[in-house]
């Protein structure tokens, strides 16, 4: 059972998780394109992070990361002054693996991708299983999301 981590520094929570939780390697991968001039990027969840997400009571709400990203985007940003949001915002409860992937997209993918992933002529982002990726990296520099993707499926 997760201890009551209210007000505990996030890094200390991760120390507890590292000592007490088994890593969980997800088969999910997130393929996204954030530039029309570049090939697709692949987001791979970290096994220790996924264990924290499934356990609950450790990670802060994803909105905390958005607030810090907003601060960092300011032209006069020098140093975080609201880091306490990571540590003092009550941690969220357990997530399913699918919910954890959605959280991770909103944390680690550019907002320009996930906020409008299905609004263009073709999808900018796809969640898939690792088996659905090309088997080798021989043509990695040309990987793109297929135009034939059936979004209704």
């Amino acid at each position, binding site marked *: 059972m997760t*201890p*009551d*981590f209210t007000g*505990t*520094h*996030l*890094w*200390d929570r*991760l120390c*507890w998780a*590292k000592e007490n939780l088994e890593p969980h*390697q997800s088969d999910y*991968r997130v393929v996204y394109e954030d530039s029309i001039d570049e*090939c697709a*990027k*692949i*987001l*791979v*969840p*970290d*096994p*220790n*992070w996924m264990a*924290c997400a499934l356990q609950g009571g450790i*990670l802060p709400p994803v909105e905390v*990361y958005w607030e*810090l*990203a907003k601060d*960092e985007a300011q032209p006069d940003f*020098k*140093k*975080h002054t609201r*880091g306490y949001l*990571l540590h003092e915002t009550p941690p969220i409860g357990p997530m399913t693996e699918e919910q954890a992937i959605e959280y*991770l997209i909103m*944390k*680690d993918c550019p907002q320009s991708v996930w906020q409008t992933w299905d609004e263009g002529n073709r999808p900018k982002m796809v969640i898939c299983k690792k088996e659905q*990726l*090309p*088997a*080798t*990296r021989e043509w*990695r*520099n040309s990987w793109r999301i297929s135009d034939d993707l059936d979004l209704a499926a």
Partner: protein
Amino acid sequence: MAFGTLKADTLTHSTAGSLTTDYVVNGSAKAWVNFDTGDNPPVADGSFNVSSLTDNTTEIEVNLTSAMSDIYYAPVSSGGSGTVTNPSNRLVATNAQTTAKVDTEMYSAANANETGHNHIVVHGDLA
């Protein structure tokens, strides 16, 4: 906190002198990850304070869970070819891209992109 807590400002050795715990807190690595760019895509084989890896072809981005306080932290890297007998001819460059993202790239002494074991350690101050 529900587990044991030791509060001390100073550590004192019987003969070697004293050390304030600031040295321990500030000097500890804040994140680390080990991954192989030969994997498709690379996954974290061992890690701490990492939420995900982003495979950006030859560059791999390391996303942190607990962010650093500013972008002037110090990511440190090393690499090996992945063979047991010869780990040579692999270099890894890193760059602090944001307070929560480290960009990495492995290359050879001839400046050609290579694959192999990547070891990234992050030092600095947490947010």
